[in-house]
């Protein structure tokens, strides 16, 4: 690929700018769906964009006790992690911009980099609320990371490869939501945990700890974290729907499948009460892990049978 094509695909389309705009669009869909489920109107289509613009225009208040390098650097690292992770997934139905063997693991860890940055940011600002929020965010990371990874491992095993675009190609025609239902459920719920959506939003429980780890962030820093979160939303949904819902090849299947997953997630968000952090961890380590391990074993056995 020539340098110009590389740069364009990296910065403008399909990653980079387009990705950010798509992320905001998906965030809007999520908020609008939840509002409609609650019999409300919901925000207008440009609301997330307006939020980011407003935040960029506001003053950034820096607490006295922070390490300035970390304070200003962590949002940037978080967003870059999310943007990089997006390079390896089939965004908007096109083939991933970059691809190599084992990029599944790299993508997942790049997404976790975002959560780690949030945790570190909370620890760094060391206000009482952000410390508790950071602790909860990292605890939740330890809780759902393993089952989520294993749930994505199931399709990888079935496809026989660690490379995302190869799994995507294998999934075409194989709807693994049907052949590995338990894995699908765990992946979906794990995604909600990763994105800190209700019922797993204990790390940013508004009624208990104000805003969790990001309490002391304002202005540009907060805007960057928000952008990072919306990118994580898109990348996570793309992964799950690519693996379990028959692969993403083309713009229309992409839109249909990812919006379908988003619809399901919005419905689950409205139906369920927030879990306490100890209940989250308990649930994941007891049910989540066992279910997904059983699913993987079953896949291995079946695959062995078929081969």
């Amino acid at each position, binding site marked *: 690929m020539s340098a110009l094509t590389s740069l364009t695909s990296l910065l403008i389309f399909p990653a980079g700018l387009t990705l950010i705009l798509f992320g905001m669009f998906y965030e809007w869909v999520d908020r609008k769906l939840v509002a409609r*489920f*609650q*019999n*409300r109107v919901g925000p207008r289509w440009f609301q997330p964009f307006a939020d980011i613009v407003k935040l960029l225009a506001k003053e950034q208040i820096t*607490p*006295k*006790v922070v390490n300035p390098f970390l304070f200003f650097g962590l949002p940037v690292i978080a967003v870059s992690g999310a943007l990089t992770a997006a390079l390896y997934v089939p965004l908007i139905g096109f083939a991933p911009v970059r691809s190599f063997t084992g990029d599944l693991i790299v993508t997942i860890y790049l997404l976790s980099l975002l959560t780690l940055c949030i945790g570190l940011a909370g620890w760094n600002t*060391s*206000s*009482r*609320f952000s*410390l*508790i929020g950071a602790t909860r965010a990292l605890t939740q990371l330890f809780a759902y990371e393993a089952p989520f990874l294993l749930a994505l491992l199931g399709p990888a095993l079935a496809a026989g490869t660690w490379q995302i675009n190869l799994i995507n190609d294998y999934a075409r025609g194989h709807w693994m939501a049907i052949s590995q239902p338990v894995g699908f459920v765990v992946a979906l719920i794990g995604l909600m945990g990763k994105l800190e959506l*209700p*019922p797993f*939003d*204990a790390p940013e*429980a*508004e*009624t*208990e*700890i*104000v805003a969790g780890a990001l309490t002391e962030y304002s202005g540009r820093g907060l805007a960057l974290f928000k952008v990072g979160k919306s990118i994580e939303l898109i990348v996570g949904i793309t992964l799950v729907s690519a693996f379990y819902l028959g692969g993403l090849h083309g713009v229309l299947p992409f839109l249909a499948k990812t919006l379908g997953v988003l619809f399901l997630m919005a419905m689950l968000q*409205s*139906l*369920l*009460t*927030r*879990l*306490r*952090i*100890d*209940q989250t961890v308990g649930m994941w380590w007891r049910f989540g892990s066992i279910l997904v391990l059983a699913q993987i074993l079953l896949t291995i056995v079946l695959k062995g049978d078929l081969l």
Partner: protein
Amino acid sequence: MNIETTLQQAEGLLAPWNKEATHPESNRLDVVIASGSLRHAVTALHNAHWGYLSAITGLDLGADAGQMEALYHFCFGAALTTLRIRLPRTALALPTIEDIIPPATFFERELHEMLGFKIAGTKSNDRLFIPDDWPDEVFPLRADFSIEQAKPVEGRQTDEVLEAGVVGGNKFVVPIGPQHPALKEPGHFEFSVDGEIVTAARMRLGYAHRGIEKAAEGRNWIQNLYLFERICGICSHTHSLAYCLGVEKLAHVEVSTRAQAIRELVAGLERIHSHLLWLGVAAHEAGFDTLFMYSWRDRETVMNLLEQLTGNRVNYSANVLGGVKCDIGLEQATAIKEGLNFLETRIRHYLEVVTTDTMFLNRTRGIGTISYTEAEEFGLLGPTARASGLVRDVRVEAPYGAYKQFPISAVTETNGDLEARCAVRLNELLVSCFAIRAIIDNLPQGPLTVKMPRKIPAGETISRVEAPRGELFYYIKSNGTEHPARIHVRTPSLCNWVSVLEKAVGRQLADVPMLIAGMDPCFSCNDRMITTVDRSGSRQTLSWTQLRERGIEYYRK
């Protein structure tokens, strides 16, 4: 046991210290005792389980009289015994009774901060209602108080930036309030946590204090009706009802049965409004935003009904001294019945959600459990007490107004946890709906208002009314003029705070907002006095940041 025998029993118990006993009203007994025998008298009543301590009122009998009086009110069903202690202004010493009756601590602190009684033997001398920079030895409710005395003291406001969260050793203090998304009104709580488990709890009130009791003394009886109505937005009708009942008793005016029935109807509608609001808030604290949105959507129905009936959605001003302002015609009656049909279906649905949804139960079942004996000891009131099986409901024990003709059955649960409190409140609403329908179908005929004198005859009276949060206690004293001499309001939320502070220890931090919401706090009801704006517009300004930082700093020591 009827009222007479109950009062005789009390008189018998207090005989050894009784200096003078009178019956100012048929259900009241006033016993004058000396301050030295206060603890003996209280212990005697407490050990015989004669009722519960309802309020402690302080009276300033005037600068000329040179005396102040403290009144300790005990309620047993419909009977009331008041222990009166008269003290000279220069020697206002009283022993504490907080070791015998724990909730007395809030009342005693109010006595001290507002009138200057020195209570000996209290565990903590922290300020509760008054801000830190209020000058010492200046007591707002005294007769010789003037606004010039209330200049803020310099140097007691702390402006330093908060340090990092860890405070001494491994004690980590999480402040909730005065500004916090969990609180709908400002209040300050400090929870020391160890990881996620709460190890100690403290609180501070007074952020919404408006000086209502003092302001009442400068307004005439009719103006005060509207002042007291605005103590609280969601129990406003019960406040105005208690005030009207008291003043009408003093004036020996009998309100028509039609007006009484309409008052009960509006009170029932207000209860529906208040409990639906509470349900939404509790769901929001738990993280169940869907229930929050739906219950508040349905609350719009009852607010529209109230608007149609009285003219306003909040602060209805349905009462006037001597009756009510608004009548119920055919149009209103039909609208109310339709609205109630819809509301009953929804309330039953919420009852089902609250008692069967597993994830919501995870946050409410077994949390904040208060047993029957604990509830009695803490002096809890209202639905918080009824959830533990303790029947404290003024509408049942001492029916007033139309509750004799249209009675309410008491709703109780036995578990005493948050789930029980949800269930009690929702079941109460179903009982209220039933009573409202009965009233509409059997509305007595009669005039809406009765003539009231402008000068209320001298005397003292006590009126107790059941607000959505518990028993509301009004002590009204008149000296025969157009202005009241003293009105003391004791709101139910003040008694229920003990439950939060005691029960938070040992639980997770995540349960704390639920615990606070579970007792349905009404901060506006709690805080009723500090200096307010006087006519020329001078005011005492305290920024929220300074208040917050001061509160945290203060408790860090």
